[in-house]
């Protein structure tokens, strides 16, 4: 049972946060990880997430927002269930990342930071993800996919559509 009686997080995550704030020499060292883990569960940093994180750390909501807006992985509106992040930085660019990004745009019918109408996918052009020697590379949420070409795109999307089906995700479309 979490110390916060009115938590918006799952019991597991709430318990994890209880431990996290105690772990460091200073309580607010837990802030950045908490925001990311909260986003993983809720989908984005909603007002309610920011309010609870602020309360747990013991700082103002404004202070939390000030920190959160610095980090590129943190977002303030929902992404798709599967967030496709295509690296177009130099090593990936040299090996065809823009063709790959274009193919994702065509297949999904959305552009940079777009979300499909069924909420299943979102698409982002991102900076270097640390897979330069296996370029071009992408991440779908936290999963890496290496050494791709535009023809890999339908297969990758089918894989995640299959996952959503297996989990019984309801389409909003």
């Amino acid at each position, binding site marked *: 049972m979490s110390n916060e009686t009115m938590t918006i997080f799952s019991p597991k995550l709430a318990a994890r946060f209880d431990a996290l704030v105690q772990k460091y020499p200073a309580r607010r060292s837990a802030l950045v990880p908490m925001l990311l883990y909260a986003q993983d569960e809720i989908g984005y940093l909603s007002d309610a997430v920011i309010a609870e994180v602020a309360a747990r750390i013991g700082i103002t909501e404004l202070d939390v927002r000030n920190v959160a807006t610095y980090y590129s992985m943190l977002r303030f509106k929902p992404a798709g269930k599967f967030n496709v992040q295509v690296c177009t930085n130099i090593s990936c660019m040299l090996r065809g990342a823009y063709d790959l990004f274009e193919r994702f745009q065509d297949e999904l019918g959305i552009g940079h930071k777009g979300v499909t109408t069924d909420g299943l996918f979102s698409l982002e052009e*991102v*900076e270097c993800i640390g897979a330069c020697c296996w370029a071009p590379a992408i991440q779908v949420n936290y999963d890496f996919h290496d050494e791709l070409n535009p023809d890999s795109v339908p297969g990758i999307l089918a894989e995640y559509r299959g996952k959503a089906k297996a989990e019984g995700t309801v389409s909003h479309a």
Partner: protein
Amino acid sequence: MPRLVSHPDEVKIVTRRFGQGAANIDRYVELGGYEAAKKCLAQGPEWIINEMKASNLRGRGGAGFATGLKWSFVPKQSAKPKYVLVNGDESEPGTCKDHLIFLHDPHSIIEGTIIAGLAIGAKLGFIYLRGEYRYLLEIMEKAVADAYAKGFLGKNIFGSDTEFQVITQTGAGAYEVGEESALMESLEGKRGVPRIKPPFPAVVGLYGGPTVINNAETIATVPHVISMGAAAYAAVGSERNGGTRLFGVSGHVERPGVYELPMGYNLKKIIYDVAGGVRGGRKLKAVVPGGSSTPVLLPEEIENLGMDFDQVGKAGSMLGSGGVVVIDDQTCIVEFALRTISFYQHESCGWCIPCREGTDWLKKSLTRFHAGFGTAKDIDNIQYLAENMLGRTFCPLGDAAAMPTLGFVKKFRKEFEDHLNGKPCPFAKHVEVAVV
């Protein structure tokens, strides 16, 4: 799973346990793991620092600062607790070496952290991974938990009366946090903006305590230095550049990958021999030798270039993070320069005006230029802007943006001129770099 490569010229020290299941603690111990930490525990701080100094190990994050010397700057007596901070924020474009260390040999990071802690008298170490490396963070967390269970970490490490704890930490997307003072800010739960130096972290660092900050590759190398002996390790490399380097070769080569080669290994051989040459038999146009912030080199500049901090420095560039990005003759350098500056513009934290404004105007100028609307004066303006960013910011991000830009403009001026007067780009398909 990222592909592992190998070449007969490699000297496998840091990568010795790759692909051998060493993420499992029993397997790591079977392969000689944690013996170096035990030895250091017995020998004491002075011996460790002397070994590190004698090894000529220099920081693998990019600056190439002598590791032993850095550790020796930490005061022996301190009113505030001391800390070790491992920088695994690996974000320099062209760099993916730490990725493999976290994946294949997480215990070498823990063992190196323990040794650094013993050397400076710290009881707590942090291992910070970039937010995108979630699956690697999970591997590190498992390794840390296993090390605690074995008594290698905790109140009494290896049954001694010495305490050492480790905390893993995730980032959430920020290149800037790879800079050491911004890294400390991030770990303290703040925006990752840099601190002014001095004071240096060795004196006033994390939570105000003396802190040693080392790159993940440096830390993973430490146990091997101890196991091999400093003299043997130093002998592998070149003069004042001990040991090996994990070179991540990417871009237009036949066999991209991370190769562990002795310091001072010839760059031309890395491209043509180790990585199989330029892809599709094309000609080499240029090479970025150490990650996107290092100035570009021309084919004639790499003929006899040994890849160590001093030789690459003398050639007018930097060894940096060891990320070798190979560019073939079908590539537009203006587009490459634009993509590079777009990255730095996106990542500039905005704290220092020369960097914030400089990266933005460089991006605007290069975007216009590449689209065919540039003027002859723009070429000089780009150079003037970049020159005025150098050395005028708290942290090196401003330099990291300016240096490569200057290299492109100076070495490929003709190619910039070829884009003038509405002439279409002779190479590029993508006229516009999307706003990230």
